């Protein structure tokens, strides 16, 4: 570098030290252009996000041993989903868990009953419903379901909705970061991002899965990227992606190949499990403060390297 600003100390012990070397480029926030550090406050007041919940029914199936004439009762738990749920959502609900989730309550009961009948060689004679702990629910909100086409498992993503484009007053792409603050209900009550969180990713989880595991997927996120219009103007584009996530068993479940979670023979307490529930996500009425910060002096300052080169391994 032949230009720059070099600050040296007074000679000390016969040696002069370079105290500050500004010949190396900075990552600079442009505070002369307000748009580069402006805050954009988004008020989400009309977006209904999809939500769904898995139905849960407890019951007892009584089996009879015709040879010896005695009966055995088996406690069963059937998980089922609303019949109007699109196939893609059903698959999303089913995929992450070892527990089957049935499209139809009766089909779930039949499969479970027959599975155990075949296993113990006894004849089912009576189904006794204890209680339906949770009715299945489903609403697509203002989104349309579509298959997720990535390389990963189907997750029941919904069509994203573009919500805002902010001109960055630049003809060139900018290195940037962004922070946002969420507040008020319902976001504040659904495990949403805590206030004052700095966002440094292109995908921002608006809601954290309501689960004690990080295996679960954030049901709703804000996606940010840069785009360019036909005039070459760079925009920050914001998009809400709505999805659903399953809270499901996070620990070992006995006989995970069985068609339902059931009490094992001789056990009167279940193994550890939690009820699978699809996250109900809805950020209607929420306010998101989004801050966009663009850095200049970023990608264009090519200069000689201290040594070395690119190596492909």
């Amino acid at each position, binding site marked *: 570098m032949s*230009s720059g600003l070099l600050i040296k100390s007074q000679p000390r012990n016969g040696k002069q030290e370079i105290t*500050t070397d500004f010949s190396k480029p900075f990552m600079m926030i442009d505070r002369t252009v307000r748009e580069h550090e402006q805050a954009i406050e988004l008020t989400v007041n009309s977006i209904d996000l999809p939500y769904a919940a898995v139905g849960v029914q407890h019951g007892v199936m009584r089996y009879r041993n015709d040879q010896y004439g005695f009966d055995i009762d088996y406690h069963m738990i059937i998980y089922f989903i609303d019949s109007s749920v699109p196939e893609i959502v059903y698959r999303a609900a089913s995929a992450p868990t070892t527990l089957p989730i049935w499209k139809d309550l009766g089909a779930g009961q039949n499969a479970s009953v027959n599975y155990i009948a075949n296993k113990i060689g006894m004849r089912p004679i009576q189904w006794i419903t204890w209680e339906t702990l949770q009715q299945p629910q489903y609403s697509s909100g203002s989104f349309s379901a579509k298959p997720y086409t990535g390389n*990963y498992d189907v997750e029941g993503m919904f069509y994203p909705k573009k919500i805002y484009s*902010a001109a960055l007053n630049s003809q060139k792409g900018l290195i940037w970061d962004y922070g946002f603050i969420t507040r008020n209900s319902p976001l504040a009550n659904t495990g949403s991002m805590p206030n004052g969180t700095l966002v440094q990713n292109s995908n921002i*989880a608006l809601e954290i899965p309501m689960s004690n595991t990080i295996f679960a997927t954030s049901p709703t996120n804000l996606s940010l990227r840069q785009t360019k219009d036909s005039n070459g103007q760079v925009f920050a584009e914001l998009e809400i992606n709505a999805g659903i996530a399953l809270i499901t068993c996070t620990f070992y479940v006995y006989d995970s190949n069985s068609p339902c979670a059931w009490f094992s023979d001789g056990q009167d307490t279940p193994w550890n499990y939690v009820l699978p529930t699809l996250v109900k996500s809805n950020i209607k009425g929420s306010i998101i403060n989004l801050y966009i910060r663009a850095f200049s*002096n970023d990608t264009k300052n090519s200069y000689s390297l201290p040594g070395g080169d690119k190596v492909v391994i």
Partner: protein
Amino acid sequence: MSVANDGTFGYTGNQTGSKQDAGIKVSQFGYDTRSAPDVGLLFNSSWPNQQIVAYFDHTITSEDIIGSEDAAYSGRLKSLTFRHDLGTVYHAEAFFVHINDTVSAPLPVKITKKTVSLYTKDSNLGSEAWKDFSIGDRIIVLVYNIDIEKNFEYDFNFGVGGLGIGAYDKNVGIKVPSKGKIKESSNLRDFLLHSRASSPMVMYIGTNDEYTRPSPTYYVQGVEQIYQMERIQSGSLSWRADDGGIYRSVGYELLPELTSSGDVEYAPMTPINTMLRRQSLPPTGLIYPSSSKVEITSFWNHDTFQKDKPPAGYTITNSIIVMRAPIDATLPKKVEV
């Protein structure tokens, strides 16, 4: 404008460790440069600024893309390694600069004292980002003057009264244009130094090595299970923001195996705000930047480390970096959607 060279710097102002007894300060209107708190200054040459010490600019070709021979990762970028040989484990970031000149969010990289490696094959980190490119896009790698193995803290003087940055006055400040550029330019890229621009200041670098041989197991009814990961709460490794501001932060965790050249290697932590997919486990841990503090939770992740148990002698070692880059939220542009 006041410029002082009064030898009043009593601290180690940058991470190189040189005592700052010379330099330039520029105060805001109404402040005496000799007594102004940090918040009253437009510029201080002793501020530990984030500077770029190495820079790579690589254009993606078909040779950089994983083919059908590795079906699980087909279509992603190969694990490119960029060698700087600087001899210090410096914090680094990578970006895609797309053909239309838009820029991606920062991409995760692994770092050693000699290299920066893209983390393309890990399913946990940037799994979407590593597919979001085209041949002809550029990868920019920036290596910063931030040694993640060296503890550092800057005692920022916030002053009294919460003074913000003053109104812009083009006649106040210092500008150093780049070679061939003019000082009247309105393009910040034309300047090596511009006192009205703000570089993220390094506020804190913390390291620890408290967790020797974690036990990535858990128990169900007394039976030991090998789980995917071990969650390890950070102990003292956190940083509190005195002013309630939002701070850029980065976390790293030491990988248990040396590179083929015998160097230790660090992998980045995942900011908590990443959209977590199922099976998208943080490779090493999570970093939580919030308005009150920055903290981490580190993990022993089998997918990342390819081991059921940590090797003998391995100690989980974390680093967190906190950078100040104030944002002005006083005049938000409100949008209703």
